[in-house]
């Protein structure tokens, strides 16, 4: 039996393609996950992230490409011979065994002599040692999830795969488990590959996040990097919310690129822009925006659009969300603003005239254009016609 690494191993996917009859789940995926990291694959359902996980576990065979774990090519290795364990979305705890029996299962298959003791230790780690003699059906969802985790980590796999393991838990328990998982990862030092569609979960837990869409990785980086500087419209909207504005580049220097969006000149640092010529989409996060009720004096380094009208406010506890539309300039899409509730209640009411400003440094330029749906361009045209009719 191979001695498994105590500290986790690198995972390398080389040019992986997986096609099912009728569709391609994964297209030429290249991915390297360094040993000991907590890596999250984030994407909507059907983006190929679970298939990627199953390929690594050996439960699916790639149509093309190689899978390398810790320098060893495991593409043709059967699942039970791979140094990998999975925490399944459904947990898949064996119903005919006790909790202890479930946790011992992997150790016994590999002929470990101290299986009982090591299983007990793993159950202590997830704080379930008092339930060792129960059946899985007698446990709550959160407890089952912890048993599934113990059953996987007790084997000290080079690579631990987590397939949306927190999906079935309620919000409070999920938060607790996120922190617990992260603590366990730090304690055991294994390589974690976590698949999820929950962007908040990916951001709070992972060192590195890869955003997947249509079987490809759109962008990969630290959660902060992905959030502050998304490269594509998909990432900008999947990871949090973004206001995306499309226009023509007017000038571009080494420092700053200026884009004309429906008559407003908006600056974006050239270093934060993926493209600096032609039609580009720039974006800014809603919480970076400020609302002012008097026309601001033009200041270099500050972007201004307006005047507009607040059409909707919703109070969300820590912040208030405003939707601002621009009836005077219908080519501008509606903008969402998150204003922190530093004073009681919402200070602006629907109908108020406002200008939206933000520091140019907070803008980012995307490599692709915003999808028509997200720019509201289609919605604006009829209202423009209605406005013209009203004037006539």
């Amino acid at each position, binding site marked *: 039996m191979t001695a498994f690494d105590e500290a986790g191993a690198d995972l390398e996917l080389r040019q992986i393609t997986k096609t099912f009859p009728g569709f391609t789940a994964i297209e030429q995926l290249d991915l390297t996950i360094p040993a000991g990291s907590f890596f999250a694959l984030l994407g909507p359902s059907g983006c190929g992230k679970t298939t990627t996980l199953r390929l690594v*576990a*050996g*439960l699916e065979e790639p149509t093309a490409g190689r899978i390398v774990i810790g320098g060893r090519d495991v593409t043709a290795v*059967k*699942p*039970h*011979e791979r140094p*990998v*364990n*999975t925490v*399944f979305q*459904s947990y*898949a*705890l*064996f*119903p*005919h065994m006790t909790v202890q029996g479930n946790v011992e*299962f*992997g150790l016994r*298959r*590999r002929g470990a002599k101290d299986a009982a003791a090591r299983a007990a230790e793993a159950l202590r780690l997830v704080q379930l040692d008092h339930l060792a003699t129960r059946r899985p059906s007698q446990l709550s969802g959160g407890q089952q999830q912890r048993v599934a985790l113990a*059953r996987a980590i007790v*084997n000290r796999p080079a690579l631990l795969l987590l397939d949306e393991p927190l999906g079935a838990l309620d919000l409070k328990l999920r938060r607790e488990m996120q922190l617990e998982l992260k603590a366990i990862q730090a304690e055991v030092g294994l390589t974690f590959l976590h698949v999820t569609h929950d962007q908040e979960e990916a951001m709070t837990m992972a060192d590195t996040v890869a955003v997947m869409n249509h079987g490809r990785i759109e962008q990969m980086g630290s959660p902060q990097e992905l959030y502050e500087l998304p490269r594509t419209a998909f990432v900008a909207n999947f990871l949090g919310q973004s206001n995306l504005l499309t226009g023509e580049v007017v000038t571009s220097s080494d420092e700053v690129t200026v884009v004309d969006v429906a008559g407003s000149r908006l600056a974006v640092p050239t270093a934060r822009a993926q493209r600096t010529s032609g039609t580009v989409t720039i974006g800014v996060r809603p919480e970076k925006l400020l609302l002012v009720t008097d026309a601001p004096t033009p200041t270099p380094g500050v972007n201004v659009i307006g005047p507009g009208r607040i059409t909707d406010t919703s109070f969300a506890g820590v912040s208030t969300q405003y939707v601002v539309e621009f009836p005077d300039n219908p080519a501008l899409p509606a903008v969402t603003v998150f204003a922190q509730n530093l004073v009681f209640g919402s200070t602006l009411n629907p109908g108020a005239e406002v200008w939206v400003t933000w520091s140019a440094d907070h803008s980012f330029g995307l490599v692709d254009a915003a999808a028509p749906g997200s720019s509201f361009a289609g919605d604006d045209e009829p209202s423009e016609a209605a406005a013209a009719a009203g004037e006539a």
Partner: protein
Amino acid sequence: MAFGAFAGGPEAAPGVAAAQRKSRIVLLLLLPGVIYLAITYVAPLISLVLTSLQSPSPDLAIGSYVYGFNVGNYVVALQTYAPVLGRSFLFALTATVLTLLIGYPLAYFIGVTLRRFPLLQSLALVLVIAPFFISFLLRTLAWKQIFSDEGPVVSFLQALSLLPHDAHLTGTPFMVIFGLTYNFLPFTVLPMYTSLERLDLRYLEAASDLYASRWNTFWRVTFPLSLPGVVSGTLLTFIPATGDYINASPSFLGGLDTAMIGNVIEQNFLVLQNYPVAAAMSIVLMVAILIPVAIYVSATKTEDLL
């Protein structure tokens, strides 16, 4: 009371009353079944016990008995027919093991392998049940023809010198066990199919993810999870096979020295008209089946799953 139920207030009384009313309705609904069981099961059982204790009538007329407490019937039954009882168990057990060996792979194939092809799965199930469309007696007689001394099987085996020229297949223990296995196979397959068809394949994936080879996955996960089906399937074969009197009868596949307990009971009841001994044999058989079955069910821990 209705308002109390809606308010969900501190007083639990309305809920309790509703539950009591509900349980009365449940009992009422159960009544036809209870009456049916009392008439068709409990009453004959009492009659059987009483018959088994009867004594011959004083005028010694054949088939005429009076009620008494004649335990001697049991002594006669056990002394005379102990070897037959042993043979019944041996034949039934062998047939049960054979149906399990043949039926489990078949049930697995239909329930798991054919899952991706629902049409083929239904077709295979129909094929398992198809023999029931022809009378069980006819099918058994057909096998007698096929295996008869002039039939194709014996001639073929004799041509290959695998059987001596004066050998028979009909009337041998082989033939009786063959008949039992054939006739009871669907009863073993169907419950096992039901268990395997519900088997969640994610458990098998989890096992292979936890270093279990295919062999280990089968014995540690698949088989234990299908155990309820295995237990009910084997019981549905073993219990009726032990008391079977068709396959072992000389008119069908059996011979003079292959008699099973069912044949003996039939003979005592219908030919010898020795009702008390036949009834005693029936009760001995019932007890002799109940004891090993109880041990089997508790050993496989499937009481709650049956």
